[in-house]
């Protein structure tokens, strides 16, 4: 049985995902080509008009991979509308005339690791629960390391002395993850690159600007969607903080929800669903910590984040913290984003000087 497996892109996480799939199933993995204008054009051509943007990107990824010869598609997700993507995407691709197998790992609105194991066992009978757990462990370790190492450059990239020094280290780091991997090696990689990041010369003033990013998960983690808003902010000499990562979503979130609700009881009585509770409570936390501004990003029509927005406006009013809202659709111009960031930047600088 020879399968060529593909899956949708999300940020740099294609590395751990393709590792897990290739090791566990022992089949060829086709990583979809990096997201470009072509991806989103393909995706939005065949999607319903007012569906949220991640759907269109996913569909574009699938079409591009199918063109490259993939014949099995893995889809997983959960939360809001994400959990229902799979069925419609399968139907659309079938109507387009592709032949493939569509495997959906979403069960009861969550990614089910047991379902993945059951499916993998069918393709690769040699695997047992111990080896599967080992690969899963490596994958999670890889994700945790990626997220841990992602934090430092976000905070310091804007103050680098040599241009592109952080980006180059990041490239090396991602390349080193692509080879053969075991837990010991991963930990070595972690310390090696942590050291390299720390040694990278920076020129950080005492009272630099600090901005937090909150919002919907896909727009936050996939830089292409948001015209790479993180880098745009950082390049102006701003320390950027964000909370939403794979580590958070997969491992921490389920234990964190009650605590969040307790913290944000001034504004919230119930969960808003998906990541909206985080958006509200974390903006409040950021405001208390003395951040200079908050950037809220989401894809157009994201229902949970729309619920969060009027409440965030109250947070903004109570703590006097500026919030800028971005809503990304399939044909945004990068210039518009740039202009709005510029204006927001000028505003927070002026506000800081007033103090």
């Amino acid at each position: 049985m020879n399968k060529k497996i593909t899956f949708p892109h999300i940020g740099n996480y294609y590395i751990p995902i393709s590792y897990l799939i290739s090791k566990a199933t022992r089949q060829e993995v086709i990583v979809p080509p990096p997201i470009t204008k072509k991806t989103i054009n393909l995706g939005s051509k065949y999607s319903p008009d007012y569906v949220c943007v991640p759907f269109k990107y996913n569909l574009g990824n699938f079409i591009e991979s199918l063109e490259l010869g993939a014949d099995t598609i893995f889809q997983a997700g959960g939360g809001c509308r994400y959990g229902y993507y799979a069925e419609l995407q399968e139907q659309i691709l079938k109507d387009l005339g592709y032949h493939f197998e569509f495997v959906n790992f979403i069960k009861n609105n969550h990614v089910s690791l047991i379902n993945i194991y059951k499916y993998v066992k069918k393709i690769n009978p040699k695997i047992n629960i111990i080896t599967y757990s080992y690969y899963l462990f490596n994958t999670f370790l890889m994700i945790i390391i990626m997220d841990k190492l992602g934090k430092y450059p976000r905070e310091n990239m804007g103050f680098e002395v040599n241009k592109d020094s952080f980006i180059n280290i990041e490239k090396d780091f991602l390349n080193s993850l692509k080879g053969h991997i075991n837990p010991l090696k991963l930990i070595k990689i972690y310390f090696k690159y942590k050291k390299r990041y720390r040694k990278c010369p920076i020129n950080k003033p005492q009272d630099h600007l600090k901005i937090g990013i909150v919002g919907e998960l896909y727009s936050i983690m996939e830089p292409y969607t948001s015209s790479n808003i993180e880098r745009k902010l950082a390049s102006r000499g701003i320390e950027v903080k964000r909370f939403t990562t794979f580590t958070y979503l997969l491992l921490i979130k389920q234990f964190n929800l009650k605590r969040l609700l307790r913290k944000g009881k001034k504004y919230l009585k119930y969960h808003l669903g998906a990541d909206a509770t985080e958006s509200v409570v974390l903006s409040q936390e950021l405001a208390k910590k003395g951040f200079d501004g908050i950037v809220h990003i989401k894809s157009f029509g994201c229902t949970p984040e729309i619920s969060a927005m009027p409440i965030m406006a109250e947070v903004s009013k109570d703590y006097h913290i500026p919030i800028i809202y971005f809503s990304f659709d399939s044909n945004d111009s990068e210039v518009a984003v740039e202009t709005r960031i510029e204006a927001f930047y000028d505003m927070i600088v002026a506000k800081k000087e007033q103090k």
Partner: protein
Amino acid sequence: MKKKIKIGIPRAFLYYRHHILWKNFFEKLNCQIVLSPDTNKEIIALGKDYSIDESCLSSKVYMGHVAYLIDKCDYVLIPRISDYGKDEKVCIKFSGLYDIVKNTFPNLKILNYNIEISTHHKEAYEFFKMGLKITKNPIKIIRAYYHAHKKEKKYNQELMQCQANNLKNNKLKILIIAHPYNIYDKYIGYPITKFFKENNIDIIYADRLDKKIAIEYSKELSETLYWTYSKEIIGAINYYQEAVDGIIFLTAFPCGPDSLVNELLIRKIKNVPITNIIIDESSAEAGLQTRLESFIDIIEGRKNNHE
């Protein structure tokens, strides 16, 4: 004599699902009910002022009704629904409704209940808790709830019976797949139902079908669907497919669940004429009329061909 407590009920969203339950429950508890009027231009304008541009039309209508009720009553009823159990979720808008209203209108006094079966917040218990805010007599609350619950069941059965009788006649029949809060709304759904009534065409409402049957039937169309309200209305498609001449999907822009569910169904259903109508706050009635007229022409022609 003690003054009656006035309870405001916005005529939007879950009103169309539970109005009999709410009305009987509060009337049994000696409350006076203040109902907001049918949706009109003013309410839409109010709703637009109080909500985010991107929210769906139905939620703008809701905010408009809530805004109308300010200063007209002691409490406004804002229920919060999260899920009806495993795999039985509702649109995420309903989980945030309470907090959105609370933060948009900080001085509003809210009466609320929360249904979240996955964490054991059941309807009867939640109504009991809500009733304690109005009266201190627990027996009265329990009696009121069961009275209201019985009334609601009876009312729904009557509606279903009425629809079953309608199926027997020989007129053209059109099945409308829409959420109750859209199809029964004066602004969103009424122009369409009015048009069909004027043209002597029978309307089959998707929500007037036994909910358990509808959910069973919906599984044939979509396996992974987990929105209960969507399941309840799409089940009608398979149930009535033989009996109707055409299907209309009616959506308020930009409805989250409908954006995916309707697209999937339109791709799956092959042997019945279908049209998809999306209403937003600037829809023109003339354009709608033209589309409906041509749709009627199609189904009339099709019926004549068959005979």
